[in-house]
């Protein structure tokens, strides 16, 4: 390409271009966008060294529905573009960078701002703003200050600070982090270990991945703080192998931290040695459970063990071990630098700080959000999430992933904290939030989660291995229209017995999605069983394949889609389906743009 005539580039005093390169961004083509910016700027003769500075690789910023996101910060003024492809780059460069006129129609809309305004960012604050592969970027914003701050302190003082902050584990159970550390620091046995749990196996969850991809040093710093506090000289990050980018960035971060002397022997001349190894897991959900995780690091099959003994007393290789979730650890640097009081001022009485959620499902703004504990569900769903897709009716939200339960629309004012969620039959879990609208069949949804847990059950204990299979069989027959009188009671009884008698958290919580949907949506189950109807028309076998005359807009798409000539339709006439010819293939149902086929 011949160099374009250099237009005025003198007006560009300070140009920063940020492109989202988290896994979501990369999948959407952010690398191509970066390359295109490079080419374009070069062709205008903007020097290469400026280029390098300009294009930061930033971690995930949460608004995944609108990837690729690009910030253009020209002379200190920032504008954000959404849904950018390489084809868009030329115009942005020409109009915005060179002429100073942002391309209005590509800029993010008000929902982007609403998405950000209700959030409080501690963990995700720097994600998307600093280069995760550059340790200096982290240091420049005050990174590793916490490590400097703890060394003059006694270990119990560090533990006390964490305890006072009220930080609770973000990996599921919400155990007080300070208390866990205290137990482990007092446990007998050497060496001790600290493990960062980055297994993140919940379907749809990617909070931990994003934190590591966007700000890996915050996790490493958290581990150093934890290691120092409990007296561990070795740390492991147990991370699923399906997270290659996170692993890549973590490796760079560990190497850089070692070079700078934040990990290794005699850190900052404190006399404290600490090193971190990465252990890649094969991606089994059960390996996120702490005793199974330990077994997996030890090279055994990932299967949970009975507790007690708890890992804090007898963990990895039989030695005292603290296991903390990624998010738990990433909170620590700010707790240390800003103080326990500051942290405890955010959130509710018993749930402090913020929580990252992965907002997915039938919601407009899907993506990663960070909110203060105690925020209401309503604020999350409507203010941040923008409500349901296509403005459909919000029906329920599933929190806590496959171990959690669903919370119906009637509870929308409920505050989001550990106790409230638990009280509603769900749990905080690791932070998955799947939003459902009136097109979601609750039986089908419960089946989805139970299929997951059944496949992921380690197979060790009877209730979980066989019981969930039997529950799944019952759910399947209900969704196939073969449900029987008494099936609901059977599910309840079996579910409760499985919860009571299982060995580990997986089995103890696997029935939750079923139990909570029965609790709040029993009528849907009954409709399936007694009337042979799936109210959300999701269960294929239960669809009636009749056209609702009210909803039908007479477009004739169903007529064209039907492979078996069962639909009769004429222009300006609602379609009619001939039951005797219908083969229930679902082609018309998929084809109807107005959901008029029931």
């Amino acid at each position, binding site marked *: 390409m011949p160099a374009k005539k250099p237009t005025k580039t003198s007006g560009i005093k300070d140009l920063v271009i940020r492109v989202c390169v988290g896994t979501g961004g990369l999948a959407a083509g952010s690398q191509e966008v970066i390359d295109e910016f490079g080419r374009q700027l070069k062709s205008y003769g903007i020097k290469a060294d400026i280029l390098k500075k300009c294009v930061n690789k930033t971690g995930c910023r949460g608004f995944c529905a609108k990837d690729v996101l690009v910030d253009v910060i020209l002379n200190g003024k920032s504008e954000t573009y959404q849904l950018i492809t390489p084809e868009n780059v030329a115009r942005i460069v020409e109009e915005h960078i060179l002429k100073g006129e942002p391309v209005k129609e590509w800029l993010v809309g008000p929902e982007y701002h609403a998405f950000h305004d209700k959030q409080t960012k501690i963990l995700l604050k720097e994600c998307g703003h600093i280069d995760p592969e550059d340790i200096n970027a982290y240091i420049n914003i005050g990174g590793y200050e916490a490590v400097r701050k703890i060394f003059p302190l006694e270990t119990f003082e560090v533990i006390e600070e964490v305890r006072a902050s009220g930080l609770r584990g973000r990996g599921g159970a919400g155990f007080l982090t300070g208390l866990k550390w205290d137990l482990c620091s007092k446990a007998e046995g050497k060496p001790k270990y600290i493990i960062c749990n980055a297994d993140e196996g919940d379907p749809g969850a990617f909070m931990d991945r994003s934190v590591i991809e966007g700000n890996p040093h915050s996790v490493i710093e958290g581990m150093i703080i934890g290691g120092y506090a409990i007296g561990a000289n070795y740390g492991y990050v147990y991370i699923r192998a399906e997270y290659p980018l996170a692993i890549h960035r973590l490796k760079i971060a560990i190497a850089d931290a070692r070079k700078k002397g934040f990990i290794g022997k005699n850190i900052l001349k404190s006399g404290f040695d600490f090193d971190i190894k990465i252990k890649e897991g094969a991606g*089994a959900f*059960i390996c996120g459970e702490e005793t199974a995780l330990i077994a997996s690091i030890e090279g055994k*099959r990932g*299967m949970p*063990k*009975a507790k*007690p003994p708890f890992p804090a007393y007898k963990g990895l290789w039989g030695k005292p071990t603290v296991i903390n979730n990624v998010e738990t650890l990433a909170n620590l640097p700010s707790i240390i630098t800003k103080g326990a009081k500051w942290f405890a001022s955010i959130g509710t009485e018993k749930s402090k700080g913020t929580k990252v959620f992965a907002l997915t499902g039938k919601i407009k703004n899907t993506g990663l959000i960070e909110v203060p504990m105690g925020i209401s569900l309503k604020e999350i769903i409507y203010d941040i999430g923008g409500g349901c897709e296509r403005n459909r009716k919000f029906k329920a939200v599933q929190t806590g992933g496959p171990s959690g339960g669903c919370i119906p629309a009637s509870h929308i004012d409920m505050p989001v904290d550990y106790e409230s969620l638990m009280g509603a039959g769900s749990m905080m879990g690791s932070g998955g939030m799947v939003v459902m609208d009136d097109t979601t069949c609750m039986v089908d949804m419960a089946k989805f989660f139970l299929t997951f847990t*059944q*496949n*992921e*059950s*380690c*197979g*060790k*204990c*009877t*209730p979980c*291995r*066989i*019981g*969930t*299979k*039997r529950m799944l*069989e019952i759910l399947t027959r209900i969704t196939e229209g073969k449900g029987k009188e008494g099936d609901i009671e*059977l599910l309840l*009884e*079996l579910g409760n*017995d*499985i919860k*009571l*008698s*299982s*060995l580990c958290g997986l089995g*103890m919580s696997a029935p939750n999605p079923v139990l909570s949907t029965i609790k709040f949506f029993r009528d849907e189950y009954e409709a399936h069983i007694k009337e042979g109807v799936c109210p959300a028309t999701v269960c294929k076998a239960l669809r009636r394949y009749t056209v609702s005359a009210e909803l039908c807009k007479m477009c004739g798409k169903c007529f064209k889609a039907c492979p078996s000539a069962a639909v009769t339709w004429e222009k300006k006439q609602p379609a009619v389906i001939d039951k005797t010819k219908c083969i229930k293939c679902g082609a018309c149902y998929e084809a109807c743009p107005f959901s008029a086929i029931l």
Partner: protein
Amino acid sequence: MVNIKINDKHITVKEGTTILEAALQNKIDIPHLCYDKRLVPYGSCRLCIVEVEGQAKLLAACSTPVTPGMSVRTETPKLLKARKTVLELLLVHHPLDCPVCDKAGECKLQDLAFKYGPAESRFKAKRKHEPADTGSPLVERDSNRCVLCGKCVRVCGELQGVGAINIIGRGFESKISPAFDEKLNCEFCGQCIDACPVGALGRRHFRHSARAWFLEPRDNVCPYCSVGCTVTYDLREGKIMRARGVEGKGINNGNLCSKGRFGFDYIYSEKRLASPLIKKNGEFRRVSWEEALKHIAGRIQAIKHAHGADSIGAIGSPRCTVEDNFMLQKFMKSVNSSNNIDSSARFGYAKIQEAVQMSFGLNRLPINHESPLGKDVILVVESDIASTHPVWGLNFLKAKKEGSNLVVADTRETKLTRHSSRWLRVKPGTGVALLNCIIKIALDEGLYDKAKTQKIEGFSFLSETVNDYPPSAVSRITGISEDILVKTAREFLTAKSRLITLTIGASENTKGLDTALAAANLVILTGENPSSLQMPAEFCNTFGLWEAGVKPELGGKNAVSMLYKPGAVKALFVMGENPVITFPDSKTVEEALRSLDFLVVQDIMMTHTAKLANVVLPASCWSEKEGTFINAGGIPQQVNHIVNSFGNSLADWQILKNLSKVMGAEIAIDDIKKLREEFKNNKSVEQPAKLTFNPVTYTAVGEYDTEFPLKMITGNLMQHSGALSCMSKGLGSVIADAFIQVNPADAQRYKIRDNGFVELSSIKGSVMMKAQVSDEVPEGTVFAPVHFSHARINHLTSLSETGSPPICAVKIKAAN
């Protein structure tokens, strides 16, 4: 001690006890399926759930340790309901094929269902349909019946140290399988079968052969090694159908090795002898007992007349009972006035006994099954304990697991080297040098018990002798680096408690009297008791044979003087031994036997030695007669008469008693009681210990000439014991053929293929067999298991009349 309450009953138990153990100890029943006393709590079946006051969750009794003041309930309505559901889940998943399952009648699931189960199931559901594994030797698997209690996996891994099977898959599809779903390739100990609570694992040879309720259990002592395990044999119509270990029984506490569990069927071999035979014109003729005994009496008396009593000799047997052996020595000493009596122990256990006498002044070395447990350091010298004494071997693994530093010096890779903390891959037969080196380091660094030992006879001679064994020199001899030698020595010498173990079996050629003496020197120097040296007897009654007096005393001839010089004796009695196969340099032995005037062999089968005999007498074997075996620890154990004796066979002691009577001897023995009394009165009394240092030097065993460049180690396989086990079809299904193990580098050098035939020669002769190419042996060394009589490995071996190990130099070439 901890006080707790179970169902309001006050109970005191030891700290660390689990709720389930506490309950069982106090006769409170909590149903359980995956619990096994020998294993780490697992908690998978969830039948043992209980309620603990103040705990919201239900807890598994088997994996929850008691805490002071704990109050437990085992039968609340909530529990009963949950338990019933768990059981129901197991049952709906289980195939209802009890009518064709061998386990029916003794199946834990059946029992539990009967006791706690629901009358009918609320579920109709999918079961598994996996093909059964019926192609592996000895062990059969049907994973459809499996309840995934994980016992087999844990027994195999935790206890047996093998890890041949694991759980694979997830969720409902989880199942027990060898890695990659292949056929089983393991030790075939069968421990997993006995552990399985249902019919998912079974004995191949027992399949569909008897219903459990028709079986009559009878206990007996295992006929193989000197551990002396108690085995429960299940009989149907007087025939042993299977053998199993029963928790809580015997020194083995239910554990058995493959020999003990599968090897009993040798008694049903078609090679058994049914009646007395006399050879005439080279042909054996069946005769009556009367005729046979009269014939023998006549010939013996004639030979005694012509050549004197000293021309009669006898060989006893470590496989025969104390009574049999005692009667044999009595027959020799008092009926025939000859002290020429010995056994295969000459090439093994006699060396241990000699060393024990010389070093400690003792008649018996205290051997203890539990001795490895709790020791800081265990040093195993060129011994494959896990093969020769498999169930004792388990305690070495256990000790290692519990923190002992297990140092194994061995040329070959064995189960023990694989489980060791440090494997010293020494050159074969260099144990003496290694031990001398440790002594040298002890003396140099003052790491020994000065007060106790400097005054002991031989101390200064010892310090002089070991001066030739500094690490630098011993590193050259053994092939172990100086660093490691010094490190090992220091660890051993500074330990709080220590153990040295070695075996000297008749077929093992890497150790000799000198090795035992060197080990004893080291033990004495560290100020330890003799019990810190564990050198066990070899077979089920090697110890008893020695106690019974089957050894040349008062100038009698030993096995070497009788069998390696033609004409040394004129008439020989051989009881339950096969010298032509099992004694070293067996060609010479064969010549000596052929030159005898008269040879009597009493055995359970027609052995190679029996074929040379003038008269062959059929003996009843173990389980067909009453008697006593004394195990390695000196514990006499009753051998029970549980099956009818074969054909016209008689117990060896009875044969000899009858013969004595025919010969007109005045012996006051008419039944076994009298015999036992006499034995008791005859037993030597233990004398007080007297410690002596017996310095020994290492003799380079063949810095071999170019003609025979390889060193051949002879020894044992885990599934075999002497030649006896080769009569067992069961054990034969694992390994039935002889082989010589050759390192891949040597195989390449001599152009040998795996499984190809080779010719193996020593200065004594040559034999043919299959090669097994494996790096379990290092370059320059080959290994030959000694069990297979057709291989005639002893055509190659030699006697060692000095104290050094009788290692054998060989050459090898591919045979076409």
